[in-house]
């Protein structure tokens, strides 16, 4: 019996891989929610405890929201359209200008920033969430803002220009929840 199994090992390995990918895809479809029922935060850091952060943010999710998703930018490598529709972005100051078309001015969000902002052509877009000099930042236990060998930079929170929650204030609630996380 074992000899038979070992002689056809590739079929068993192939099946295991197919199962993994197929059910992963099915459950992604099952648990995904319509844009109006979910809030998406995109973080431009690969070192990220995305599921734990999503769980922590879910505890403060606004009414009517079924799903809070947190992804690093790498997640959207094959789907830049979905990246453009995120509700919030957490981006380093050196890269922010690249994505300026995806950001919404803070003034349009109803958000009164209590601190430093990232501005472009005199318009404030980003809310500072990580200070490279002090090393302090929001949700720092979930996001590694710096890595060894990297030059530290400030990180800012931006509101999505194509977000489904531009008018209902739910993206703003998520932003506030993020700021309250240590």
């Amino acid at each position, binding site marked *: *019996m074992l000899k*038979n199994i070992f002689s*056809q090992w590739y079929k068993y390995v192939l*099946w295991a891989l197919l*199962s993994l990918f197929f*059910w*992963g895809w099915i*459950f992604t479809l*099952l648990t995904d929610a319509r844009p109006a029922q979910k809030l998406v935060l995109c973080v431009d850091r690969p070192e990220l405890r995305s599921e734990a952060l999503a769980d922590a943010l879910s505890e403060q999710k606004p009414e009517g929201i*079924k799903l809070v998703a947190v992804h690093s930018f790498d997640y959207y490598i094959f789907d830049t359209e979905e990246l453009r529709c995120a509700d919030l972005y957490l981006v380093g100051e050196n890269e922010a200008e690249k994505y300026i078309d995806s950001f919404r001015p803070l003034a349009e969000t109803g958000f009164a920033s209590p601190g430093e902002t990232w501005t472009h052509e005199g318009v404030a877009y980003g809310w500072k969430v990580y200070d490279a000099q002090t090393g302090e930042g929001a949700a720092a236990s979930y996001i590694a803002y710096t890595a060894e060998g990297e030059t530290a930079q400030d990180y800012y929170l931006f509101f999505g220009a194509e977000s489904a929650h531009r008018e209902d204030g739910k993206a703003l609630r998520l932003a506030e929840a993020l700021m309250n996380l240590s």
Partner: protein
Amino acid sequence: MDSKRELYSRQDVKRLEKTSKRAGLAAALMAAATLGVCVLLCCLTDQDNAAAMEKAAVLSSILGGWIVIYLYNNPVKDLRYELGHAQMLLDGERETLEGVLALSRQRMRIRGSIRFYPLTLTDGDETRRSKVIASRADALRAMEGKRLRLYVVNGYVAAWEEL
């Protein structure tokens, strides 16, 4: 007394057909049960238990699939090959070979067909080659070194008698 021994009878073929169908049905049922469990897990999934349900579905799918692969590759396929072989032996045109039997110990398999043992019949200077299906080779094994007449279909032993 007729000492001719057939490897397969019509009854054997019927029995093989029945067993082959049962093995195929068992594999199909296992596949259906695995799919059923996974679909049920999908139906019970919500945002809170999604991760656990996904793990359970992947695990069920892998284990169930492995059992189906095993059942299909071993009992089901082997029985189908043997059934086809038995029908061929019963319906095919026979030729006879005579000589002293030597049966190889090395079991062989043609891809997509039965397992068999090669054999030779030596009659003076002449050596003839044939094959016998592995699952029915025991009776011939006991006749090694004896002089036999083999009834052969397409190179495979269908019946034999001791001379």
